[in-house]
């Protein structure tokens, strides 16, 4: 696709969508992961894959949730089932671009960078990549109908417990 194809129009990102995207990050980064599933529609598509799988058309992915229930199961895994060293993310999201704008269904693409900080204070860039979002207006609120997370890297630093 080229520049002109990408931008259907130069619509401003509505404040409510900016707020949704920010809240997504704050839920995860500030230890209120319980609030994260409600930011998606049900059914939905949340998927983490690698750029190489994406480019080569491989369907396998690192995480795949197609219902709010599956998102909630990820929360339970983080909170009480799976065992891992506690850590924190910090999301940076920028270069948000409107790909398709309609009153109640938006497509956006953006760049993300997530750092991971362990409790011993060590900190590193954990993941970078692209978000491909479909955001819809349902009962008066914008929610993620789709968020595809495409990691630039095929190698993961040990594990991904918290969503990216």
């Amino acid at each position, binding site marked *: 696709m080229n520049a002109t194809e990408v931008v259907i129009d130069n619509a401003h990102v509505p404040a409510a969508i900016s707020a949704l995207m920010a809240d997504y990050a704050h839920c995860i980064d500030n230890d209120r992961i319980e609030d994260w599933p409600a930011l998606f529609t049900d059914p939905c598509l949340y998927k983490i894959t690698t750029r190489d799988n994406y480019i080569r058309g491989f369907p396998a992915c690192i995480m795949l949730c197609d219902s709010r229930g599956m998102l909630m*199961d990820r929360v339970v895994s983080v909170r009480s089932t799976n065992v891992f060293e506690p850590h924190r993310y910090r999301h940076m999201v920028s270069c948000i671009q409107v790909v398709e704008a309609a009153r109640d269904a938006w497509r956006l693409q953006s760049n993300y960078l997530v750092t991971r900080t362990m409790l011993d204070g060590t900190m590193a860039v954990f993941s970078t990549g692209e978000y491909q979002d479909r955001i819809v207006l349902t009962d008066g609120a914008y929610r993620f109908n789709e968020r595809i997370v495409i990691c630039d890297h095929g190698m993961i630093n040990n594990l991904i417990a918290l969503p990216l």
Partner: protein
Amino acid sequence: MDQDQALISWPEEGVTRAPFSVYSDPAVHEAEMTRIFRGAIWHYLGLEIEIPETGDYRLMEVGDTPVIVLRNGAGGISALVNRCAHRGTTLLFEPFGNAKELMCVYHNWLFDLDGDLKSVPFDRGINGKGGMPDTFRKADHGLDRLRVETINGLIFGTLSDDVEPLRDYLGPQVVGSFERSAGRKFRVLGYYSQWLSSNWKLYCENASDPYHATILHAWATKLKLNRLTMEGAIEMGREGWDREGWHQLSWSKMATDKGGEVYDRAEFRSGTESFEAFGLHDTSVIEQWDEYGDGITTFIQTVFPNFVFQQIHNTLATRVLVPRGPEGSELIWTILGFADDDEKQTAGRIKQGNLIGPSGFISLEDGMVGSLVQRGLGGGRDKATVMEMGGRSIKTISNSRASECGVRGLWTAYRALMGV
């Protein structure tokens, strides 16, 4: 590394102990690269289906040796060391691709798909000046090659001239495992890898250790997906065979859980911890079908030193663990299905993919625990692990997985090759 002095002084308890120093000592690591990875082993190199056409290649590392695995002109498979014979430049640096010939970027020495040196720019000089000396023979400057053999579409290679043929190295048990599991044509569904901040052997021990599986992976245990009370076993090759214990199979059948009195005892976390709000909100992730018609739901076959073939429910994958220095390693996953899967089956495998890999509900801990051990070693170089579950030998116990015999088997192979 000085052969005269003992590289490692092994505890007298033998394979029920592993001295902590083997997990971090750089000299030990160097010796492993030579004696194990460049020694008498067969090393997994990939799948035939990854390189179907002439010139198709994938890169792999055998210990610290970079290797190109490719489909050569004759339709066979070549494994060549990824190092130019001129001055050592890495020849190919994309993980996968197709190359009709191998041309080094530095001075464009040209090698064919068998690693033979075909041409050297300016070898005759310019206007008769310069160029290579008459005594220079292209035939003496080909790429280093690995011996290659395949089994059921899995490619193995070795840098050793001595090691026996692949099937003899694997033995009937492993050969049978691959016939059972890889009898039909695979399809690659994708790739990913995990960086592990731990010595390569810590992950290999983990893969050879069903004892941990139902305890560390509480998620699986809570859902009764894998418990030692199910029908299952560890198999390590014919008793007395000179490679007994080198390679291990651990399998179990989910449908046969005899109930969990052991799990209901209050002695361990996954048996006791109250998971507030636990219980799946969406069970589609554990919907499965009998993959091989034998009722086996978990099937983990390892090949010494660093290969794993896995079936967990309907997730099929190969895993190879590449050592990267004494305290790091990379676990490379290849996610598989069968070529003749229908869409529903593929979708099922993808969704069950939530169980495995870096975010796998029942594998997420395997990489993490290695770094916990690596860190625990601090200040304990003079100490050792204790591996006595299921006795002190490498004998298996029929239909029981409450044993560390697999880990003892791993160390048996290690000591044989390392000469310690």
